[in-house]
């Protein structure tokens, strides 16, 4: 739903798509999809300048990014199911992951962990599975559309 960029915080506002229908093996699921910005604990405009953005644009991006994180957190109150997308090439033991997943569990909101970027050679799904052994983890590549069958299977399982 959102654009992809090598500059962090490309998604800085919540995107809503209503009435999405997934049909899979004779089953049908209709839902509204809320694509939120990634949640962060720090945002420094100077980091954006490393990607050759001007100071003015970097400051604007930082301002929008902080607002986006606040908005994403507020949306957590209204979710029926959350798909937490983690980068399978990164260390999963980040506190943001642990905090957000802990928060969803405390609110009894079902969650599915999508380990993205499995097409990359240094992807480590096993590390994500061992970091969060009590949850469903499904490896996908959003870029290549890989393993979507298993992803839908898991999605249908948790919304049951």
């Amino acid at each position, binding site marked *: 739903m959102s654009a992809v960029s090598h500059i962090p915080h490309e998604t800085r506002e919540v995107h809503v798509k209503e009435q999405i229908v997934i049909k899979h093996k004779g089953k049908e699921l209709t839902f509204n999809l809320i694509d939120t910005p990634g949640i962060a604990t*720090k945002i420094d405009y100077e980091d954006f300048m490393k990607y050759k953005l001007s100071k003015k644009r970097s400051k604007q991006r930082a301002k929008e990014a902080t607002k986006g994180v*606040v908005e994403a957190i507020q949306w957590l109150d209204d979710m029926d199911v959350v798909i937490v997308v983690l980068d399978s090439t990164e260390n999963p033991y980040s506190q943001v992951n642990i905090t957000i997943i802990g928060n969803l569990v405390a609110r009894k909101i079902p969650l599915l962990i999508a380990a993205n970027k499995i097409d990359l050679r240094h992807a480590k799904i096993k590390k994500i599975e061992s970091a969060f052994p009590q949850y469903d983890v499904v490896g996908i590549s959003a870029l290549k559309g890989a393993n979507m069958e298993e992803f839908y299977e898991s999605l249908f399982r948790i919304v049951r």
Partner: protein
Amino acid sequence: MALTLQFVPYDDIESLDTNSRIEKLLTIVKNKSVVLMEGRLKPEEETKLIKKTMQEITRTFKGIELCTIFPEEKNLDLFKKLKKNFASMILGDREGITIIGPASVVKEIRRDPNKIQLFTFDIKK
């Protein structure tokens, strides 16, 4: 210049409501000290801490690095699990340690199940 670690005993925040807890911790971090807190915040309080941090970001305050160490339950036999559950009932959120550092001082807190590494920037006066 030295890196300052400020210990916050759980007793200091126990009687405070969520907003006052967050305010207290953020005040220490904004003074460029690293909070070493006994125990942990509730998951919803941690989320509120992140939200409040984002709302307070300025040119000089760039956010926080946060890490909680909590006793692992893996590989415990039944007796040890029961003992641990009993201890958790008594200690509540007092178990574990929370580290919160200013992002301008703490570059990264790297956490693996059994160790924590704190990477800092060069601290300027």
